[in-house]
């Protein structure tokens, strides 16, 4: 008998009594219906409490803010998606105050060393955010691959204020996650950190040292 059958059979033929299936009431996770402004406030507070940055922008000025952020950090380049509208507008803007734009358009193995050692910052879109915990929802795609939000030391994310949900539960229901998930999905709630050395917080242990969110209001 295979191990699979051995295990399943042992579980199916358990010696105890019939197991009851309890009801699960998720209403304890509900929060009052916050307004968009309240959600943005809460999101900002939560992200800042874990060492992240939130910049409130509009459709017209986010690129200016981005340029400032990158200039302050002396970023030599910015990793962008191949076709996403964020990437398109940056490339079409023809600005000279932005660093070199690197396009993630090749499989990672052909430029792993460059990605790990030479890329200073990246910018990605999000599938919304969660106000209660200060989390970004990312579903990496062919266009915006997984490592964009992980390897560069600075990760900049664009979040539309209108796509900010109150709780994880609400976001998941609204986006119908139970119907099927992509190969990889993420909640990101701050820069990479650790407290493994005597409970002292240190940032940027393996992932980005900085998480900067541009909230488009």
């Amino acid at each position, binding site marked *: 008998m295979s191990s699979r059958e*051995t295990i399943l059979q*042992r579980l199916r033929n358990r010696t105890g009594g019939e197991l009851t299936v309890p009801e699960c009431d998720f209403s*304890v996770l509900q929060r009052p219906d916050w307004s968009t402004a309240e959600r943005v406030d809460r999101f900002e507070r939560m992200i800042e409490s874990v060492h992240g940055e939130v910049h409130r922008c509009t459709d017209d000025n986010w690129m200016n803010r981005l340029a400032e952020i990158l200039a302050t950090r002396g970023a030599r380049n910015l990793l962008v998606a191949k076709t996403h509208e964020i990437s398109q507008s940056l490339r079409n803007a023809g600005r000279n105050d932005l660093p070199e734009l690197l396009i993630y358009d090749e499989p990672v193995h052909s430029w792993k060393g460059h990605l790990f050692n030479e890329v200073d910052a990246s910018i990605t879109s999000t599938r919304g955010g969660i106000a209660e915990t200060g989390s970004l929802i990312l579903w990496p795609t062919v266009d915006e691959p997984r490592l964009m939000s992980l390897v560069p030391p600075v990760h900049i994310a664009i979040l539309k204020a209108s796509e900010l949900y109150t709780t*994880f539960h609400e976001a998941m229901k609204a986006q119908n996650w*139970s119907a099927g998930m992509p*190969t990889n999905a993420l909640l990101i709630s701050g820069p990479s950190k650790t407290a*493994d050395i005597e409970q*002292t917080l240190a940032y940027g242990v*393996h992932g980005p040292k900085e998480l900067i969110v541009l909230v488009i209001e």
Partner: protein
Amino acid sequence: MSETAEHTDHHIDVKQFHPRAQAAIQNPKIRKNFRSAMDGLMSKRKAAFEGWDLETLRDLGANIRMRALANLPDLLEQLEKKLTENGVKVHWAVDGDEACRIVRDICKARDAKTVIKGKSMVSEEMELNHYLQEQDIEALESDLGEYIVQLADETPSHIIMPAIHKNTGEISQLLHDKTGTDLSNDVEYLTASARLQLREKFMNADVGVSGVNFAVAETGTLCLVENEGNGRMTTTVPPCHIAVTGIEKVVPTMEDLTGLLALLTRSATGQHITTYFNMISGPRKAEELDGPEEVHLVLVDNGRSSIYQDDELLDTLRCIRCGACMNHCPVYTRVGGHAYGTTYPGPIGKILMPHLIGLDEGRHLPTASSLCGACGEVCPVKIPIPDLLVRLRQESVDGDKLHPAKVRGHGAKRSTMEAMIWKGWAWMHASPGFYRFGTGAASKLRALQPASAGAWTDYRTAPKLAAKTLHQRMKERGQ
């Protein structure tokens, strides 16, 4: 078969709990490191649940886990079906040895020489690192705490914070000795050095091995909870990802994650959420530019299906591995994680490990408790840990005639003398004449009572027998 205990902890005799606990208690550094860490974790947890209806939330957590366990075999099959559809290869292992062999075979098939590891307590249970090393495959831990523990050739002393027994100075010295970094008390510098060392390893590793916090059956999704990003690196950068998990980690729906995640991170470290909640549902698709080409899941039984047989012991399997029970345990806080000599220390270890290693080997574990009840009160899924400790104590002496003992190695602590004393005790209390005679005689002879009663009176005053029995006093009062 899972009934044989091929795996006990590496070089450690679990039965030697008492000498290890004694040594730990007398080590001020260990006392201080654990005390300050546990105090911090307790207050952070408390703050994180402020404003929550915690009892109702814990009920939800318990119900989610109970619902999953009630349908465990069906859910495992559903999980396997979904994952297979998604392109993930699912393997089953009755014990740690078989799980190790599965990991080895996957590595060998890819001609893999280096494995980078994310944090996984199941892989600690399997002793995967030692096994792979013997097979000439380098296995390197990438979680900072696990990395430190591996450099020191130790085992984790806490399931969430593996290196909590070391202070900054000790870690600095260790990193200096093993990796050549400068001696420094600057945690940022030490962390940055480790980042640099491990980045190279992530880039070049052939295989990534991780654990799983929750596996969702309805979508075939493996979830990892972490702060560092090493878990994401491990599961994204190498061309092959192998996830190992206990069979109890499956939940039916994505919705279940919301309740369990809310409880897990707040209970564990007092965080509202961790930096990353990573949900993996399949390998890289043909058109994708990164992610592993191959994803495997190894479902490990290793004693869990035995726990599953019994209605009371079953509650052990609800555990979501937050570590809150150890953070709040007065015994753990004083003796630290290594004293137990087991993969899982503290209260959860005391009720889980006897099933994994046998109650003969783990005979002292259920007694390493004052039964204060703190663990049961903070458990996010309401595991009645104190009740289970009592149950295991009974099983270790075969002490409950109405409920025959079931755990492998039960009765290891049974002593004929003790059993006879209890028999006599029961008989005396069931015979009024002898009871009066016995208690009366004991009162009269109270002067002969020894002043000390072994270890009991080391730190306590010996209770004195009363001059008159309760029966005599009641008689005097005319009642």
